[in-house]
Each structure stands twice: as C-alpha cells, then as structure tokens.
C-alpha cells in the first residue's frame, strides 16, 4: 500500500486513481460469480459523476451474483507511465486488471470518443479485435452507439437504448451460459453470444442481422440513492437527478429525441423522495434536475415549489439545464431565483421563421424579446444564446434575420453571449440524408456574422470540428477499418483527427459531405426511429428546403 501511494504521488491528482470513494462498493472477489468492469472513456474528473454509469453501477451491484467496478481514462502523465510499463490500468475498487473481469462495458456518451478507443484498449491491455475466449466480453452502450458501425469491430456486443433492463438480461445470460467463468471457454463464449443476440436491444456483430432500440420504464429501484462521491472535485460538482427521459418536442435535427424516446415521466412523489433521500445521504450542495427539456416536465411547478423550502434552509443550489426558449422556462427560472443565480442559456437555433418551420422548433422573436425584457427586469444581466448555422435550405436572408434578432435582444439591455454551432446532420433524424455544407462557405458565414455583431461575444467551434463530428456520426465500415488500425493515440484537436484519416487515405471533408440522397444508409440495421416516419417528416419540409 505504501509503495502504491508513493508511486501515485508522482502523478497529477493522484486521488483519482486511488478508489475507495464514499459509497463505492467492493464485493468479495472470489465469492461473486460475475465480475463486470464499467469503463468511462473520459478522465475521472469528467466521468466520475456520470449519471448513466452511476445507474448501471447501482443496478449491477444490487444483484447478489454480480459485482461491478469502475475505471476511467487516465490523464496524460499516467497514460505515458502505463505505456512505458511503469504503471498498470486498474479498476478503482479492487485494483485489478481489466482482463480479470468477465464483462467490460465501455459507455460511449458521444461519437467523439471513437478516436480514443484504440488507445483505451491499449491501456487496458486488450486487443481491439481478434480476441479469443480468454478475454472478457467487451460491450458498449450509451448515446454514442446510435451509429456504432464505425466501432463495430471493437466490441462483442452493443446495447442500443436504455441499459437498465438490457444489462440485467445480459448478466443473466452470462451466468446461464457458463456459471463461474462467465463465458470463458470457446463453447461457453459461443452460446453466450447467441444468448446475448436474443436480448431485445442487443446487437452482436457477426450474429445479429439488425437491432431495435430497447427502452424501459423509469423504476424507482433503478435509481441510486447513494451515488458514489468522487474523491476529487469533478466538473459536474452536484447531485444530478433525472426527472424524465425523452423529449416531447420534435426538432428535426435532434438525434437525442429519437434515441431517448418515448417520453417517460418520473411521478412527482417518487421524484421528491429521490431528491430528499439522495441529498440527505450524500450532502451535496447543489442539485440539478436533468432531462432533455426539464421545464416541460409536467409536474415541474409542484416539485420545485415543494423542494425549495428544504433547499433554501440548507443552502443547496438548484440548476435547471436545457431551458427551452418559451414562457414556461422563464416561469421556472423565476421560481428558483430566491435560491441562487441561474445561468440563462437558451437555444432557439434560428430566428428566421422559414428556418424555424424547417427544423420544427418555433421561437417567435417578438415573444423571445419580451421574455428577455422580463428577465432583465428580474435582475439578470447576461444571457447565452445558441444558434445553428448551415441548416438545410439556409439562405443569406435567414442569416440576416438571426443578426437582426440578436441586435434586438441586445437592445433589451442584456449582455449576449452567442454560440454558433455548425449544423451537423445526424443519423436517425429526418435530416439524416441531408448533405453537409461546404466548409469554405461555413467559414465565410461565421466571419460575416462576427463582423455584423461586433461587440457581441461570439463563440463557435471550427468548421473542422463539425466535419469530424459529421464523419463519425454518419460513418460506415470504411471509417471503422481505419479506427481499428490506427495507432494508440489521443488526438485532441480536430485537425489531428483529420490528419489520421488523411494518412489512412480518407479525406474527412469529402467523406463527411458524401451523397446520402439515395440508396441504403450504413446505419439501417440500427432501428432507433421508424425510418418511413422520418422520411415522411422530411417530405413535409422538402419544398421549403428547395
């Protein structure tokens, strides 16, 4: 132990590798039949407070026949030490190597993690492909697998959709196939893979032909009332409670709406119980009520009104993210003003009525301006606004509308921080076949808006970032081959990622902008949304797009 501490002291934030956190669960290794390791592809500081990981950790450890441990991507100094053989990538709870586990689950919160997978596998000392039965079963899940085609070769199985029930069924299958070793013999592994492919929402490469997204009800017992308290302060330094899953709106560009559908609402009494119990158990000073559109949670007023006295008495701050630019959001914000200052961030995406009709998100500028005046009167000084550029069918006149609208909002007396996001067509949305904008045109548009809005803090990712995002989001097996064969690197910038693709003979801009207008889509075997419904939805606005 002393030697381990001495070694860890040479790395940045050593507590992140130490484990032994409050409420972490360490079960007896030998006495537990099935051992699962959940791996976060981001560093501890970002991933340790992940809600999805926390829910699965709770569900697996609630079973007497299984144990679940966690591990996160190491920071650069530790990665170098692991690659040079000085250190090992170990689980946090029992300090064991990933290979000792029966199942390894890697959550992919976004497609941006795809580039880190070769290096993550290398850190874990697990080959990216061609693994025999002596290796653990590698599974993946999370929103990043909505199009898993580019990483199909890395994993033995994918969970598409909600993991709560699918994970339980997978563990049952693993126990049923080869009790003590969890599928660690050739015959055991084959029967396990076949059993996994029979589970709804699970795709097994080489066996499954297609997969339909799975979803479950939000049952109270799935929710951890004592989530692990990280050893160090994390980016999400508060208690995160999911109030509902799914989104009642139908924005045509949004993949999350389709991935998390249908809308499932947590009953208000159950939600209040979870909030009070979790706060008492953990002692967090902040609370976040999260969902894709929290102000549209049907019982938001009732819940906020009943928790405010407790939060006020105990000095706990309340954050409601994902504010939709409409009256309900302002009412919600006004309610929590006595508690703490609220960060006001709205995402109208566009102020042009024509574009609003195309994307299916309506935010009349007159109403929005009126809301901004009310917010100013309530004492707010600044507001963040998110707009999208490069939407399908966008013309110069639409950009002018956005510029005019931002100028009007500034006249309300608020300091505006404007974030411009280049539109990235996503799989499983009505815009999945839309072609990507030209990067040069995009740079021109961004330059023009910045010129017109001098004095406004305008932020935006580079067009290269969006090109890479689009290439990964609508990637196919060709990209998968490159990822499988790429060296164990951690490319952080988009230009580094583009260089990797270029070196492998793939022009990222041309690949991202390839024609999807006809033929079969690479992700057609992943059935997240009804494809004919998506096509019908797109037909409604095709004339407007032109």
């Amino acid at each position, binding site marked *: *132990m*002393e030697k381990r*501490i*001495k070694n*860890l*002291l040479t790395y940045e*934030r*050593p*507590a992140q*590798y*130490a*484990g*032994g*956190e*409050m409420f972490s669960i360490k079960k007896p290794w030998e006495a537990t039949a099935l051992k699962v390791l959940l791996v976060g592809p981001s560093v501890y500081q970002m991933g340790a407070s992940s809600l999805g990981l926390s829910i699965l950790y709770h569900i697996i450890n609630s079973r007497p026949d299984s144990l679940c441990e966690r591990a996160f991507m190491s920071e650069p100094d530790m990665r170098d030490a692991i690659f040079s053989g000085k250190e090992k990538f170990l689980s946090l709870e029992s300090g064991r190597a990933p290979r000792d586990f029966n199942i390894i689950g890697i959550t992919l919160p976004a497609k941006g993690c795809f580039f880190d997978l070769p290096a993550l596998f290398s850190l874990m000392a697990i080959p990216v492909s061609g693994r025999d039965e002596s290796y653990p079963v590698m599974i993946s899940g999370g929103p990043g697998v909505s199009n898993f085609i580019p990483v199909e070769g890395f994993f033995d199985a994918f969970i598409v959709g909600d993991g709560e029930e699918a994970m339980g069924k997978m563990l049952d299958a693993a126990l049923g196939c080869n009790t003590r070793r969890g599928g660690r013999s050739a015959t055991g592994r084959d029967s396990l893979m076949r059993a996994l492919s029979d589970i709804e929402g699970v795709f097994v490469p080489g066996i499954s032909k297609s997969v339909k997204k799975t979803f479950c009800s939000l049952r109270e017992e799935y929710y951890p009332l004592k989530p692990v*308290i990280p*050893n*160090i*302060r994390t980016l999400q330094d508060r208690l995160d409670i999911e109030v509902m899953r799914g989104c009642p709106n139908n924005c045509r560009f949004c993949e999350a709406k389709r991935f998390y559908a249908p809308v499932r609402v947590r009953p208000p009494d159950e939600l209040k119980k979870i909030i009070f119990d979790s706060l*008492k*158990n*953990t*002692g*967090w*000073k902040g609370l976040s009520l999260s969902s894709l559109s929290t102000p549209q949670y049907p019982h938001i007023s009732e819940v906020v009104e009943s928790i405010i006295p407790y939060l006020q*008495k*105990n*000095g706990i*701050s309340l954050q409601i993210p994902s504010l939709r630019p409409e009256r309900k959001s302002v009412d919600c914000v006004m309610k929590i003003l006595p*508690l*703490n*200052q609220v960060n006001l961030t709205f995402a109208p995406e566009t102020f042009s009525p024509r574009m609003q009709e195309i994307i299916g998100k309506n935010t009349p500028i007159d109403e929005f301006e009126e809301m901004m005046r009310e917010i100013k009167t309530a004492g707010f000084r600044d507001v963040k606004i998110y707009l999208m550029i490069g939407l399908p069918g966008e013309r110069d006149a639409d950009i002018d509308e956005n510029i005019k609208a931002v100028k009007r909002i500034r006249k309300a007396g608020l300091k505006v921080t404007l974030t411009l996001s280049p539109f990235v067509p996503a799989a499983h949305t009505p815009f999945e076949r839309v072609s990507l904008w030209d990067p040069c045109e995009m740079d021109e548009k961004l330059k023009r808006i910045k010129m017109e809005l001098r004095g406004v803090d305008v932020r935006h990712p580079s067009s290269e970032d969006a090109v890479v995002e689009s290439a990964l989001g609508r990637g196919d097996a060709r990209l998968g081959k490159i990822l499988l064969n790429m060296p164990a690197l951690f490319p952080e910038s988009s230009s580094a990622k583009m260089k990797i693709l270029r070196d492998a003979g793939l022009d990222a801009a041309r690949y991202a902008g390839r024609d999807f207008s006809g033929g079969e889509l690479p992700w057609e075997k992943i059935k997240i949304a009804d494809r004919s419904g998506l096509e019908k939805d797109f037909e409604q606005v095709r004339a407007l797009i032109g």
Partner: protein
Amino acid sequence: MIKVRVTYSKRGRFVLTGHLDTMMHIDMALRRTGLHFVTGQGYKRKIKFASSPALPLGVESVCEYIDVKLVEDYPGGIIFSRFADNFPPGLDVIKTEIINGKAPPPKAAVYEKKLKFLGLFPRVIRKTIVFGSGEKISFPAVRVKFKI
C-alpha cells in the same frame, strides 16, 4: 451556541486527496450529520468551520481538527456518533470535545518519519515545523500533534 472541536485522522488512500478536496468532503460530511450548525447568511448557507493548516499531499495525520459551531447542544454521545458515522473512509473521527472560550491557534506541527538505515532497525525521526517557516515535509510522514 456551542463550539465543538472534532479531531480526526487522515490515513490510507485518503492521503492522496489534496486539502481543498478534503475540505469538500468534510463540508459534505457535516451536511450528512443532520446536526444544526451555525451557517453564513448568504445564498449558500455555508457551514462555518475552521480547519487545521493544510497537510502536504501524501502525509498522514492523526491530529487533524475542525472547529464548528452548533446552534444547540445534543445529549450524550450523539455529537460524536453523528460525526463518526458520516465522515468518509480514510477520515476517522477520534474525538469530539466542547470548547469553552477561544481555542488558541496552532503555531507548529510535529511530524514523525520512519527512516531505515542499513544494518540498523528502523528509526523514527521527529521534526517540528513552525508554520510559515517554508520548511517542507514529504511522504512518508505522519503529523502527530500541534504545538500551541
């Protein structure tokens, strides 16, 4: 209002946790106790507590303390048991005592370090460091007491 000094140890894996992160854990532990503390009057209602000087990373201690103020007194061993039950693993409460009047601040800390010499038994070296002197102490060492 009563003043309580909580003495705790910081050992094991927790020595890898820095001072600010340790203070976050203590603040959360105080909230978990459910005791009625004196707080600030701002939005955050911060529990007012004074802690012992920061411990270097990697150094153990058996004499860390925090001074808190309770709005009301609690009978018997409730105060100790609430603290002992809610501190995280690695921070173990040794004792709680009620302080009357002003507690004098520590001026120096005494550290013990085990050194091994070839052919000899391990020897314990004691060192007293006055705060602000700029002297540094590093792993492996144990803070054993404060000089008032």
